[in-house]
């Protein structure tokens, strides 16, 4: 028997597989297809203080090895999530869920985290700081160590639940941003969010996305995500959740060898709704073939073995 369990700051997961925020809604569509309790956990759609429609459509574009999205954080708002989505989730998911929180000001992050702190279903808060700070000329919080630190400090004051800061890869020095979060009391780091990109429609001579630019995800970003997990996990003592382009058990293991304690899977769910159960099923055989009987033994082995 291979032991797939991992531990995220005290939150026990039966396995390291977590559908990523934005690619899994609040889980309902997938619960029609398979038993969600086989997952380690899942990170629900990025939730903000107020309901948001998001960006105009088209919001989706395609590219070699991936996709671009400019959904613009469409969500029903934190109060509706607490009153409606969480009770619904309870009907088909019986483990602690990961609450993904978005925001456009430090106060918004603080308020949302304070509210979500009261929900016993939530095992961990993932704070998505790849959003523009409306009080700082639209620069995203994750763009500078100071911005990331300010949000971390604010949310740390309002909750004892594990806080994982989700970082944008669109920065010069990801390590500096991660260290700033750690210094302000973050329990872990989630990375990466999408890379900024765009496509142009030849016939219309205009960007495909109504928002013009959007976030790139999918297999194309896997090497970038892997490199950042590798750098950050060596620089901080807190756990790292590896995200970006993962669509197979092999890539899960690569991510963990690079230093991830758990792995989130985003876009792959959209093209293959069974990707997570398939990976969970494939992991034991793959690990046995590698002579590994505890998946957590693999975390960071690629740099520990240097």
């Amino acid at each position, binding site marked *: 028997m291979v032991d797939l369990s991992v531990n995220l700051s005290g939150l026990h997961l039966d396995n390291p597989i977590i559908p990523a925020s934005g690619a899994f809604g609040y889980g309902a569509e997938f619960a029609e297809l398979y038993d969600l309790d086989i997952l380690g956990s899942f990170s629900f759609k990025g939730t903000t203080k107020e309901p948001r429609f998001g960006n105009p*459509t088209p919001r989706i574009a395609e590219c070699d090895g991936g996709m671009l999205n400019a959904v613009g954080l469409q969500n029903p708002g934190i109060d509706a999530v607490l009153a409606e989505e969480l009770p619904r989730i309870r009907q088909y998911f019986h483990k602690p869920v990961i609450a993904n929180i978005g925001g456009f000001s430090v106060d918004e992050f603080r308020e949302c985290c304070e509210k979500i702190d009261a929900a016993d279903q939530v095992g961990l808060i993932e704070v998505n700081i790849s959003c523009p700070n409306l009080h700082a000329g639209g620069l995203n919080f994750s763009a500078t160590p100071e911005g990331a630190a300010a949000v971390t400090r604010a949310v740390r004051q309002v909750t004892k639940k594990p806080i994982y800061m989700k970082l944008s890869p669109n920065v010069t020095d990801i390590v500096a941003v991660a260290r700033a979060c750690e210094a302000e009391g973050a329990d872990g780091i989630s990375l990466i969010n999408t890379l900024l990109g765009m496509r142009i429609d030849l016939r219309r001579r205009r960007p495909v996305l109504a928002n013009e630019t959007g976030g790139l995800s999918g297999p194309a970003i896997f090497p970038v995500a892997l490199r950042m997990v590798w750098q950050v996990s060596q620089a901080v003592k807190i756990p790292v959740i590896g995200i970006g382009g993962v669509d197979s058990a092999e890539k899960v293991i690569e991510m963990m060898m690079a230093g991830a304690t758990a792995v989130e899977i985003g876009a792959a*769910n*959209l*093209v293959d*709704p069974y990707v997570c159960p398939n990976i969970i099923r494939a992991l034991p055989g793959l690990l046995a073939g590698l002579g590994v009987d505890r998946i957590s033994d693999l975390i960071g082995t690629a740099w520990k073995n240097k």
Partner: protein
Amino acid sequence: MQKQGIYTIQENAPLTREVYRMVLAGNTGAITAPGQFVNIRVEGCYLRRPISVADWDDNTITLIYKVVGEGTRRLSRMGGPGAALDLLVGLGNGYDLDCCGKAPVLLGGGVGVPPLYGLAKRLWRRGITPTALLGFGSADEVFGEREFCALGCPTMVATVDGSYGHKGFVTDLLREAGMRYDYFYTCGPEPMLRAVYDACDCSGQLSFEERMGCGFGACMGCSCKTKYGTKRICKDGPVLKKEEVVW
């Protein structure tokens, strides 16, 4: 409720220069209404391609699609012994047949025509014969007329350049024929949907298109505003009732 499955390609042949008809064999149990769609995994493309179900029976699905880009080009080249596709089926709400009135009219434009065929067939099984108004660019793009006629539907075709049938749009047919109808169903490019919406006094249903990430409601890629709140074209649509549409 959506289901994933592998479907073997029984037939994949051109109807016109750019439009193909594909017949797939496999489980069709998830399809509950005409106007629903499938989402097709195409080798070499990252995202699936949404295509309406033109018709289905106990073990086959018929799709009619136009080659417009890389994905549909790849689809058009598929076939041969053992060729198969990974499909998500039973997607979307589809047309509601219960409120069809006594004399429904179907208005289709280009590759918006196919889902209306599946609809016509099911209305016909309920003893209702709809009128079919089909619009295309020009004569060499016309398809489907014979199939609607075979169901006994009064059928008229309009082409924009007048090279076949009436010259003009489907909405011109509606006016010129001075026909009587008490409900409409439509599918086609958005400007056509708008024209139909404006031209018809009666109630009806319109099928919309949007670029999709997943096709089954998970990514919020396809959202639109309606009078009853935000809806996902892929899950709460693609068919919207006239009364809820916000342009």
